[in-house]
Each structure stands twice: as structure tokens, then as C-alpha cells.
């Protein structure tokens, strides 16, 4: 197993453990405070723990396990291929293009390996190679448009997911009266528009430690929230930030708007991608 794969797998195990410990502690404090726990909360906690456990084999099968042809590459070739593959898979290319490039890479690298050529002579710098491939599809300056569209979609998914999750904890209250903490909205905003694009960009380099960036950010954000709660809670803005809530789905029309926005953005993304990717020099 390469260093990259070990880090990916370990960070997924660590993240799953963090989630499990958090929900168990939450369960413990809820029982301690209320002396009782409703069945919905219990089911919800069970689902979260189950999903956390399942997430580890999912990460293994999707991100770590080598395919039949990838196993044909020597360690030297595979390490270079892995960098190119990650860069392509985390790019804004369509899934068809990504699959095609992956197949091409495997064919080219296996052929070169069989002819006895060293990997460094074939690939050179894998990061430059990956960049050249992406440049042959589109000018990089135009790609942030697609990242912003992705960010909006992630944000909507997170908002809807968290709203449903909170509502499950108190189903006696209307779904449209469910509020999300301002700190949580900030957290989701940073994840959608900064953390995901930055992680995608950094994981396509030699620095595999970037795979733990999401976990590290989560820990830093929680610590930050606890520190400002401890020392600055008397400040009104901090109090609002930590405990103030906003109804992100206040009525059925906003919910419909969110739902309509997803396919609209997908179509928009498809249209922009077609236009952008046709004009590479």
C-alpha cells in the first residue's frame, strides 16, 4: 500500500471514529440531562454510527483499492500514475473525459513499462504531466466558474441534509421551523466554497498529508468555537455566532427553490463545461 493510500485510509478511520465518539457523547449527555431519549433520536444515532462504519470500506473501494490494470503497474510507475489520476479525478473534467484519460494513462504507462523504460523517463514530473493534460482540455483561468457552481451545490446539499438531521431529532416541530446554528452555517459555507476546492487541488500533488486537511479543519473549527465560547461569550456577536440560529428552509417555496436549483446548476455546469472545454489552444 502506498503512503497516499495509508493516509487516505487512516484519515477515513479517524474521521469515522470522531463522528462515532461525538454521537455517543451526545447520547450520554442527552440521557444525563433529560433522563430519557426518544426513539427517533436513538434511530438517528444508530444510522449515523452505521454510516460512519460503512464509510471506511467505501473509501477503501473507491479511493484505495487498485483496479485489475492498475495492479499491472510497478510501484515506481504506480506512484507517478497515482498523482496524475488524482489530479484528473479532482479536476472539473466530465466523468467521461476522466474515465478516458485514466484508460489512456494505463495503456501508455503499461506499454512503456513493458518496453523497459524507467517511469521517470516516461512521465517526467507527474504534476506537470497532469497539468498539461488538463490544459489540453481547457484554459485553467476559466475553471473557477465551475468550482463556484460546485460550491453552491455542495452548500445546498449540506443545508438540506443538516436541516433534515436536526428535524429528525425533534419531529414534533415543523420541518420549516428548524433552525441551523450560525456557526454551523459558517462551517458548511467554508467547507463548500473553500475546503473542498482547496483539498481537491492539493491532493493532486506529492503532499499526501493534504488528505487529512478536512479532518484537521473540523478539529480546528470545533476548538476555535470552544475557545471563543470560553473566553468571549459575553460579547453579543460571539454569542449570536455560537448559539444564534437561522431558518435556512423557512417555507415550502424555499425548499422547492433549493430542489429546482440543483438540476438547474447541473445543466448550467454542463453548458459552461462544453463551451469552456472546446476552446483550449
Amino acid at each position, binding site marked *: 500500500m502506498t503512503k497516499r493510500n495509508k493516509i487516505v485510509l487512516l484519515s477515513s478511520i479517524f474521521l469515522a471514529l470522531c463522528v462515532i465518539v461525538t454521537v455517543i457523547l451526545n447520547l450520554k449527555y442527552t440521557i444525563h440531562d433529560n433522563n430519557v431519549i426518544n426513539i427517533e433520536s436513538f434511530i438517528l444515532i444508530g444510522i449515523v454510527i452505521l454510516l460512519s462504519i460503512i464509510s471506511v470500506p467505501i473509501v477503501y473501494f473507491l479511493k484505495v483499492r487498485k483496479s*485489475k490494470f492498475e495492479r499491472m503497474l510497478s510501484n515506481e510507475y504506480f506512484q507517478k500514475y497515482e498523482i496524475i489520476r488524482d489530479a484528473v479525478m479532482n479536476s472539473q473534467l466530465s466523468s467521461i473525459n476522466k474515465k478516458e484519460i485514466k484508460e489512456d494513462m494505463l495503456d501508455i504507462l503499461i*506499454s*512503456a513499462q513493458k518496453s523497459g523504460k524507467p517511469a521517470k523517463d516516461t512521465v517526467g*514530473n507527474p504534476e506537470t504531466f497532469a497539468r498539461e493534460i488538463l490544459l489540453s*482540455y481547457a484554459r485553467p483561468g476559466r475553471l473557477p466558474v465551475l468550482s463556484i457552481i460546485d460550491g453552491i451545490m455542495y452548500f445546498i446539499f449540506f443545508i438540506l441534509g443538516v436541516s433534515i438531521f436536526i428535524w429528525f431529532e425533534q419531529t414534533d416541530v415543523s420541518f420549516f421551523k428548524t433552525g441551523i446554528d450560525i456557526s454551523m452555517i459558517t462551517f458548511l459555507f467554508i467547507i463548500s466554497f473553500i475546503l473542498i476546492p482547496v483539498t481537491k487541488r492539493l491532493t493532486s500533488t506529492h503532499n499526501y498529508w493534504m488528505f487529512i486537511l478536512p479532518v484537521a479543519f473540523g478539529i480546528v473549527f470545533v476548538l476555535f468555537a470552544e475557545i471563543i465560547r470560553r473566553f468571549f461569550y459575553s460579547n453579543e456577536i460571539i454569542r449570536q455566532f455560537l448559539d444564534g440560529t437561522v431558518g435556512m428552509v423557512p417555507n415550502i417555496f424555499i425548499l422547492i427553490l433549493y430542489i429546482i436549483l440543483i438540476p438547474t446548476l447541473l445543466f448550467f455546469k454542463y453548458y459552461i463545461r462544453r463551451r469552456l*472545454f472546446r476552446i483550449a*489552444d
Partner: protein
Amino acid sequence: MYCIGGEAMNNDTQIVKGILEGCTLKIVENEEIYGYKAVEKLNTLGFEVNEATVYPILTRLQNKEYLKIDKRPSPYGPMRKYYSLTKTGKESLREFKDTWDRIKNIVNKVMEGDKNDKKK
């Protein structure tokens, strides 16, 4: 970086990029070819290029619809792309040849003039 005639040239120089694209079109015109084979052919002709240089060129030519592809499994197993020239690709190759002949003549004249000046 790759070399032509022993002189290292920066691979983002537009002129070199254009020359390599033209030569790749010519190679594909002669026979249906796959990525690794194209690298070998270019190297046999005297270019010193690797897969990292040639693959993006092939992709660019394919995206410009100068090349069409046929996919078949390679002897080693993975799917392999075989490239051949399209009608637009043939036109582009003809344009490249015309431009190249013109530039070659101009450069030769300039160089010969330089030699004559030195003799005087």
C-alpha cells in the same frame, strides 16, 4: 523539456508546439497509431520526446477534431485508443505543410544571406 537536433527547447514555445502537432498529424496520416507508438515514432525521427509531451498533443488534436479514435483492447489488457486523421485533420496538415515550407524558405534565405555576408 525536449530536444530537437540536440538543442534543448522549452516545451511551451508556441512554435515548437506547432511543429510537434504538425509532425504528429503527419505520422497519423501515414498509419493508424496509438499513444505509445506515436512517442516511439517521433523519437525515431530525431525528436526526444516522452509520453508527457505527446499525450497532451494527441488529446488537443482529438479535441480539435483533427483526429478520430477507435478503441480496442491492447495486448496487455487496457483499452487502447488508435488515432487516425479526420477530414479537418487533413486540411490542417496541408496548412501546416504550406506554412512550414514558407517559413523554411524564409529562414534558409536569411541564413544563406548571413553566410554570404561573412564570406565578404
